[in-house]
């Protein structure tokens, strides 16, 4: 089973070249992947595991990467799937709780600036969202992905992306405004 794009090239050579590309793409995206892992799990150690497993999985499945598509999107979807199908379910099964979201994503406060305080408040608002909404908000508004790309990474229909983002916006707006809309 060979990807169509590789037609006419010696398969071994194509795969080697492709793996080098993926390796270099991984190196460029490690920090962003780690941040997504942190947003999903609220745990630095799990973010670390998620990145490592994403690297392994991507290198194992080089041939599944469609040439000409965005590598970072592909890596995000691998990380998300590992989180959802493996790590998260395992943690739930083992009954290990998650740390308080308010603690996990907040940046060190030793040298507080007002910007810093505000950033932490935005993080808190996002952290307060349910998991599914939080992932959609992160991908759409922090990573700047289109609805279509978010849908592909989360493996859900575009309509579901829209409703998660709409629900998240309503909730954040309500929290920003204090009690309800004015």
């Amino acid at each position, binding site marked *: 089973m060979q990807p169509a794009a590789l037609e006419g090239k010696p398969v071994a050579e194509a795969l080697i070249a492709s793996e080098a590309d993926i*390796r270099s793409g*991984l*190196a460029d995206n*490690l*920090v962003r992947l*780690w*941040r997504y892992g*942190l*947003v999903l799990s609220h745990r630095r*150690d799990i*973010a*670390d595991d998620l990145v*490592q*497993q994403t*690297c*392994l999985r991507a*290198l194992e499945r080089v041939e599944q990467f469609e040439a000409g598509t965005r590598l970072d999107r592909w890596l995000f979807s691998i990380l998300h799937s590992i989180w959802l199908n493996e790590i998260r379910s395992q943690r739930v099964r083992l009954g290990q709780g998650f740390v308080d979201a*308010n603690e996990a*994503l907040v*940046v*060190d406060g030793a*040298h507080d*600036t*007002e*910007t*810093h*305080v*505000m*950033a*932490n*408040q*935005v*993080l*808190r*608002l*996002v952290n307060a969202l349910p998991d599914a909404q939080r992932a959609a*908000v*992160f991908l759409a*508004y*922090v990573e700047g992905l*289109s*609805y279509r790309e978010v849908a592909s990474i989360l493996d859900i229909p575009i*309509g579901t992306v*829209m*409703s998660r*983002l*709409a*629900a*998240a*916006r*309503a*909730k*954040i*707006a309500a929290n*920003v*405004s*204090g*009690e309800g*809309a*004015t």
Partner: protein
Amino acid sequence: MNDKNPILSDEELTAYIDGELSDAEVSRIEALLHSNERVGARLKFLSRSSLQFKQAFEPLLTAAPKTELDAMLGIVPGDAKPAPSRPSRRGFLSAIAACLVAGVVADQAFIGIRNRLHAPDENSEWRTVVAEYITLYTADTLAGPSPSDDAQAAQLALLDDKLGLSLSPQTVSLPGIEFKRAQLLQYDDKPLAQIAYLDPETGPLALCIVRSAVGTKEPDVEGRHGLNVVYWSNPTHAFMLIGRIPIDRMQELAEDVRKKTLA
């Protein structure tokens, strides 16, 4: 989905804000925005959630243990069956700690962006900006012990210096409400003094001061973003006290501060 506004769903308005609609859909929504007040109000409400997400999450990139991650990729075997091995946890944690201490990218745009959307009434706009800030404060924002009198005086001295004030821990003290910090912010390229307090019952409140040439104005009250505001000015400065304390109590507190800052 949204029973408050049957004409346009929150999904449609969200997609509109996010620029995800076709030209035809955009035209339809914009026509409705002109003709239907509730649509506009709902759009305005949902737009409050347009925060600086990118900037807020930027520091988490700095916080990532980049060196360790790079090393990890280096040890991932390229062949078929890699044995997962990981860097030592201890090394990881110290790397994370180092990255965290390295701090945060300060982003002036973060403050600037919040000035939009509001009427360009110079005298009240600064209060809008402050109110937007304070709505985001929680008791957590101001967690931790209150500074000593000496520390308070030192923080206030910085404000005095930049704004030509003469504040002391006594002049800015509020009865029964803890002083948490005094800091110098910036609004519209001008210094803004913010003294933050924590009321055990209603949460954060703040006394904010800017230079002002508007002249003396008696205290007045207003509500902004669900917060109570008492504001006034003397010949050199404009003041506002903002929080969730009931308005008559806020007025008493403000009057107390006003007298002390006159002296």
